């Protein structure tokens, strides 16, 4: 797939002697989007960490924009344009909100004004230290901080956790917009499968280290049986 | 061949390492000049480090030297607490204990087996206090000493001599032992406007610091006389102080520059053996200590029994690089000439020049409870 912005080929990785992912392949086209689903602890976060280079790659390769980045340092990958939003609220506690945003910022469409208008709450708290924010504000800050690096692909690890419903609404709208208007590709790991599938074009389901299901998100959304089998999740009444 | 084991207890490491280093060099020089023999026997040195002023460690080391290493004589002792700590062991083990540096009067009273070849602080300063009034031409002084045992001893002895001779002490301060900056004390001295200042501080970084602080305030000879014990004008300090040291008058029992054949030879040999480093009081204390051991052993015919050796050492007299010295038979304390020196420019360099001498000085406080 030549026009893939991000591609994983037979990726195998894990911690210490343990293997978590064993032969995962996936690709995200330019401006495309991919939902990564799976039960708790199957390795969704690990997949993102492997893309970033934090978890060592045992076999296979990771390509970004046609370039093999498997041997690169995480910061080099980030500078190439992979934007990662970690699962835990890893804000920098000793930086102010604004410093959190600018510390790694790179030029592009997303600047302070842009993220502040996405999350007006952050503008109000701009001079506070990171650890003085409320839980949800921290979550917003984590996302905004990555946007400030103006990535061309965004890896989101459960970004909706702890956010008020109305913020979730705005954020999902913004994510859709980004993909459409700016061509930012998206990899989304999310417990709320319905939301995730609603936001993405393609989806994979991971189980026991491999891709157990692969398909269009829209199809999977309708296929309750598959969802139930792999994710064990009673879809909330939508 | 028979050997004599000498155990050396000194602060080879820590803040007083340099002192021990110089003592050791003095000991080594004596041995080198005597084929490593004392009293006709080969010397085996066993060196023990206390790591600083550590009485309990010194006590343990002395004990180990006696029971484990089976030494015949214990010697060294950079610092007073270490000598005091080891004194009991010397008594219990019946070993002669030669104190080659530690300078508090009371040490020799702690064991009948202690003999000292260094100095006592009152010895230098009591006589000096008198001299300052009688010949130094002043009758008021401000004293500034380091706030620890030797400093207090020095202050007391100087003040005693000074007032006995009719002078008056107009102020007295004690500065913390590890004091890095003297400006406050020097300003206090200036405010009191005395005719002279008396200073006692340990060697090391402080002498130049205090010298410069004095000169920054204009407290320099001839306007204000500066007196002190010789540490104040050690060669390194003079180098760093430059012309601000000019005219400082100090009391000491050894002067490296003293022109005397025995001393000149000693200085030259010492420098040759130590990369050009000059000897100081510590070196000479170690050097003379070895001489004492040698002579005492010769007298006992090689018998290393502590009591016999000490008996042999009593009253012994000889010529040292520092001048004529002897051991007081009553107190086992050294008797020596006290040299009064002034910093003068000689051949473009500043050095201590002897301007007066007080011969055969005994420790004045000795026997009296401190």
């Amino acid at each position, binding site marked *: 797939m030549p026009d893939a912005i991000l591609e994983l080929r037979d990726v195998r990785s894990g911690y210490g002697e343990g293997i978590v992912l064993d032969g995962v392949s996936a690709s995200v086209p330019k401006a495309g989007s991919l939902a990564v689903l799976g039960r708790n602890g199957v390795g969704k976060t690990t997949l993102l960490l492997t893309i970033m280079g934090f978890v060592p790659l045992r076999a296979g390769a990771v390509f970004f924009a046609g370039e093999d980045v498997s041997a690169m340092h995480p910061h080099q990958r980030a500078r190439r344009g992979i934007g990662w939003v970690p699962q835990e609220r890893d804000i920098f506690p000793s930086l102010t909100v604004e410093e959190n945003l600018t510390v790694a910022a790179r030029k592009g469409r997303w600047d302070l004004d842009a993220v502040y208008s996405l999350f007006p709450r952050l503008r109000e708290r701009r001079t506070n230290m990171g650890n003085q924010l409320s839980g949800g504000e921290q979550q917003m800050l984590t996302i905004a901080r990555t946007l400030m690096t103006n990535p061309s692909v965004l890896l989101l690890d459960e970004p909706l956790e702890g956010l008020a419903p109305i913020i979730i609404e705005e954020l999902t709208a913004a994510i859709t917009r980004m993909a459409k208007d700016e061509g930012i590709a998206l990899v989304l790991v999310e417990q709320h499968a319905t939301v995730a599938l609603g936001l993405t074009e393609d989806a994979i389901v991971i189980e026991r280290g491999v891709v157990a299901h692969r398909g269009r998100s829209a199809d999977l959304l309708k296929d309750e049986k598959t969802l139930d089998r792999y994710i064990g999740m009673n879809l909330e009444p939508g | 061949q028979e050997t004599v084991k000498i155990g050396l207890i*000194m602060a*080879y*490491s820590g803040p007083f*390492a340099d002192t021990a*280093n110089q003592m050791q060099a003095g000991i080594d020089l004596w041995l080198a000049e005597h084929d490593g023999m004392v009293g006709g026997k080969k010397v085996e040195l066993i*060196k*023990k*480090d206390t*790591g*600083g*002023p*550590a*009485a*309990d*460690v010194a*006590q*343990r080391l002395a*004990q*180990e030297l*006696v*029971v*484990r290493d089976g030494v015949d004589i214990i010697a060294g002792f950079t610092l*007073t*607490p270490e000598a*005091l*700590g080891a004194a*009991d*062991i010397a008594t*219990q*083990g019946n070993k002669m204990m030669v104190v080659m540096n530690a300078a*508090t009067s*009371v040490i020799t009273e*702690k064991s009948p087996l202690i003999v000292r070849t260094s100095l006592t602080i009152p010895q230098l300063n009591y006589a000096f206090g008198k001299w300052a009034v009688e010949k130094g031409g002043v009758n008021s002084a401000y004293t500034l000493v380091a*706030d*620890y*045992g*030797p400093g*207090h001893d020095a202050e007391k002895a100087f003040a005693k001599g000074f007032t006995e001779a009719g002078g008056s002490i107009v102020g007295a301060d004690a500065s*913390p*032992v590890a004091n890095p900056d003297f400006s406050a004390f020097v300003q206090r001295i200036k405010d009191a406007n005395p005719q002279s200042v008396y200073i006692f501080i340990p060697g090391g970084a402080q002498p130049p610091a205090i010298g410069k602080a004095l000169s920054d305030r204009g407290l320099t000879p001839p306007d204000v006389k500066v007196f002190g014990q010789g540490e104040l004008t050690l060669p390194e300090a003079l180098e760093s102080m430059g012309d601000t040291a000019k005219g400082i008058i100090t009391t000491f029992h050894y002067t490296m520059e003293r022109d005397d054949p025995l001393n000149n030879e000693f200085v030259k040999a010492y420098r040759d053996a130590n990369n050009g480093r000059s000897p100081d009081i510590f070196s000479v204390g170690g050097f003379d200590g070895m001489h004492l051991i040698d002579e005492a052993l010769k007298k006992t015919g090689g018998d290393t029994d502590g009591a016999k050796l000490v008996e042999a050492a009593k009253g012994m007299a000889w010529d040292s690089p520092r001048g004529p010295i002897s051991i007081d038979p009553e107190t086992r304390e050294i008797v020596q000439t006290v040299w009064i020196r002034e910093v003068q420019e000689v051949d473009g360099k500043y050095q201590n020049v002897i301007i007066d001498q007080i011969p055969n000085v005994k420790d004045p406080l000795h026997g009296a409870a401190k």
Partner: protein
Amino acid sequence: MSVFEIVFWLSMLLPFFFFPTYLTLASQVAITALFAISVDLILGYAGIVTLGHAMFFGLGAYVAGLLSARLGWGEPISGLFIAGAFAGLVGFVASYLIVRVQHMALLMVTLGLGFLTYELANAMTWLTGGTDGLSGVNTWPIFNHFRFDLWGYTAYSYSLVVLLLGFLISRRIVNSSFGLALRGIRENVRRMPAIGSEHRWHLQKVYTISAAMAGVAGALLTQSTNTVALEVLSFQRSADVVVMLILGGTGRLYGAILGSIIFLLVRDQAAGLNPQYWYFWIGLLLMIVVLFLPKGILGGLSRLVRRNG
């Protein structure tokens, strides 16, 4: 007691039979080990870092010394109790300050208190003898029978017994519900109030106990050497004991003992070989331990045992 422990304590008897000339060193090791255990109680179990614990060691040492030198009371066992009680009392007072600060501030407040005590002792030369040390200490024979001998048989037996008692008491403490509370504080102070804990009171308590134990160790030193010098209060002693503790491994009591043994033995041997440069080897030892055994020597050992066992 496990087999390891029995073997360990039996091996502490070895000096009596095989290294009688090392008995004084052995008793200094035992005393230092007791001191290190007292630090482990607060540092390893309650997370109170300190750079001033020599303060209590020294107070104990001086109290024991003054009892004998100024009051003529040289009975050792009551001396230990009095010294420990006094150090504990001062520790209790100090604990009101200690619990108010954490991290760097805690480190520096303990350091400051340590230096203040040192300077105070120096200033009170009339009482303490200042830098020359306290003279005239004379400890009576234990139970009026066992004299402190030149070889150090009595000193080591005595120190070893006190060490064992101190160890047993400490072990009881750390395995009690109080010990659990201390670990809770170390793990997460923030949570403690939320489960209803007056954690400051716990900290004050353990600090007091630790101070008393350090005081006992100091008194032991005085009694077994009949000397007290200012150095018992020095920063160096405070720092050394922490180094030994980390070296052995914190939070395991045995680490404190092992660290003291290794540090003092290496130091003794290295200084024996080269009195001027021994600290080079100590320095190297510390660096290597950190690089290869990040949980201290005992931590490394126990990992090894677990892997093979």
